[in-house]
């Protein structure tokens, strides 16, 4: 035991003395994988952009299962990474437990609020961005029926769905909005086959524009929409390039900006704990227009959606946030 003790003591010192010195930022990619072309990839792109611009490096690890969260978070904190960015609401309870053990490390959590002195919580006004793409969907739809495929059935995703439905109804009060969720567990974030099935089912019910807010599952949704020659709307990242001519637009959620800014704040010491809200006003959410979807967006669509955007920022249109009361006025 004594041998072990001295051995441990010695290595512990060498392992953790580096803590303050290196201070690379760390990013924990959530379930679903780094290249989900959506939420995680957006975060990854933000980290890459920071790396390219500053020429510095960061630490990164990828979660494989629910029960791993704590070890990954602790490992990242122990390795001397600062700040540590965790992605997704599922990390909240773990971070709540881990953050107090590392008071000197700054954490940033995306999509959920964790009330700890060393945690910054970044939340997005997804309902506002979804409202905008809802308006576009209603304008692009011929059938008057549009649809939504969510990932895991949680309030956060209902927030997307509800904002979208409000946008659709705002342009066409008679429109029909079909809402489906992929599943009730985290595997719902990475099930493109099920996503495609749901999309086909919605098409058979008359939908001609489908909005996917489902992480990796959305890949299947967009694929099915392209195969069936209807329009789709991507999420989180700009997914317009995936199926040019079929992806109407993407509700971009600038997780990349959140990560980039958190990394930068760690660098210049401007880290601020508390809640940081990213909405239309500060370009935290928005709709994507590029050469891939330009032919699909008419001038009137563009004008209407920009007008709507201005009205939301100006407070003229109030978009209801599902998570505040668990209800949605649009369905």
């Amino acid at each position, binding site marked *: 035991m004594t041998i072990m003790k001295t051995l441990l003591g010695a290595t*512990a010192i060498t392992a953790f003395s580096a803590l303050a010195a290196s201070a690379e930022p760390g990013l924990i990619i959530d379930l679903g994988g780094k290249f989900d072309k959506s939420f995680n990839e957006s975060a990854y792109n933000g980290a890459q952009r920071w790396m390219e611009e500053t020429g510095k490096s960061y630490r990164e690890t990828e979660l494989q299962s629910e029960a791993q969260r704590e070890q990954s978070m602790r490992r990242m904190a122990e390795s001397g990474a600062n700040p540590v960015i965790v992605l997704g609401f599922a990390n909240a309870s773990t971070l709540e*437990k881990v953050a107090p053990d590392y008071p000197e490390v700054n954490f940033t959590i995306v999509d959920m609020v964790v009330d700890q002195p060393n945690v910054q919580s970044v939340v997005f006004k997804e309902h506002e961005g979804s409202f905008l793409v809802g308006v576009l969907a209603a304008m692009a739809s011929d059938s008057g029926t549009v649809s939504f495929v969510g990932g895991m059935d949680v309030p956060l995703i209902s927030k997307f769905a509800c904002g979208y439905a409000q946008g659709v109804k705002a342009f066409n009060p008679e429109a029909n909005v079909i809402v489906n969720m992929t599943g009730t567990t985290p595997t719902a974030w990475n099930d493109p086959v099920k996503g495609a099935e749901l999309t086909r089912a919605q098409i058979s019910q008359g939908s001609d524009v489908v909005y996917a807010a489902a992480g990796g599952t959305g890949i299947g949704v967009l694929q099915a929409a392209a195969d069936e020659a209807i329009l789709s709307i991507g999420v989180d990242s700009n997914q317009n390039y995936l199926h040019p001519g079929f992806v109407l637009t993407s509700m971009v959620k600038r997780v990349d900006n959140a990560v980039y800014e958190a990394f930068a704040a760690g660098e210049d010491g401007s880290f601020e704990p508390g809640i940081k809200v990213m909405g239309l006003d500060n370009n935290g959410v928005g709709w994507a227009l590029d050469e891939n979807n330009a032919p699909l967006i008419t001038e009137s669509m563009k004008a209407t959606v920009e007008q709507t955007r201005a009205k939301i920022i100006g407070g003229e249109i109030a978009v209801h946030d599902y998570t505040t009361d668990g209800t949605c006025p649009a369905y």
Partner: protein
Amino acid sequence: MDTMPRWADIALIPLINLALALLVSALVIAAIGENPAEAMGVMIRGAVGSAYGWGYTLYYATNFIFTGLAVAVAFHARLFNIGGEGQAALGGLGVALVCLMVPWPHWSLALPAAVIGGALFGAAWAAIPAWLQAKRGSHIVITTIMFNFIASALLVYLLVNVLKVPGSMAPETARFPEGARLPSAYDWGAWMGFGRSAPLNVAFFVALACCVLVWVLIWKTRLGYEIRAFGQSEPAAKYAGIRPVRIIMITMLVSGALAGLMAVNAVQGEAERLVIDSVQGAGFVGIAVALMGRSHPVGVLLAALLFGALYQGGAELEFEMPAISREMIVVIQALVILFTGALDNMVRGPVEGFFRRLRRGAA
């Protein structure tokens, strides 16, 4: 009859198996263009090179001791309990209910209650396959595997629909209240260098106690005698008036209870809440642990330590050498299981031959 010395059977062969597994792993790592020596170094340092590493290695080992003992006890009655995964998952449910339903004033009261809860739920989950085997002759391998799937589906349902905290989005229970949280290695082992991060907790001592209890059960009690006799020869056991139904039921209940106890470590000790997939394959690792440990508690303990180190070393490898993906680490762990479990006879034959020649040479 004995063609080789006992030490060769219990120490040499597992070591050769392990060496072969690591050799093949090294070849695989080399094949993807990474430096095997460096990777092995990272794994070893990560597992046993720091208090942080030990904290996790022993934490994982605790899980594997429970599931390994579960498989080992069943082995003695020649029952192949593949259901450790499901039994441990249900044990997690039992532990979570105990911890959440009662406002425990202190962990020393919560721990025995959680032990009972985990053991009861694990045993209950083993009881149905056991009954089907004893009464209907349904093969226990098939039924326990099926019950793993049922357990997984059941837990998803309960976590999503019943146990989830209202308003929370994650399918997990509330965090257990203060009085139900077990002291971690930081609380009682800080002098050994364990930091706050160590998931190692007092459940480790429960696991050690279980090793002793299983040893007493199998080698000292009348029940253990009957279990071993039944495992050696069912007709002979019937001759001796040992009732097969009774032995199958009791053995599987004990086995399921041990698997269920894993939750005391993983659910109560570490996560302090019940999450989806809290078992993380430990039920299956338990099979390899029991095989490698020759179904003896001491062997199970040592094999569990080895697999704990492999798991922690693997996690570290993934962190330190991102080029070696998670899948690669699973490959390495699988190779160890393959060589120590399934391919055991491949090494055994030549080693036995070697000793036979040695003996003939000496004689």
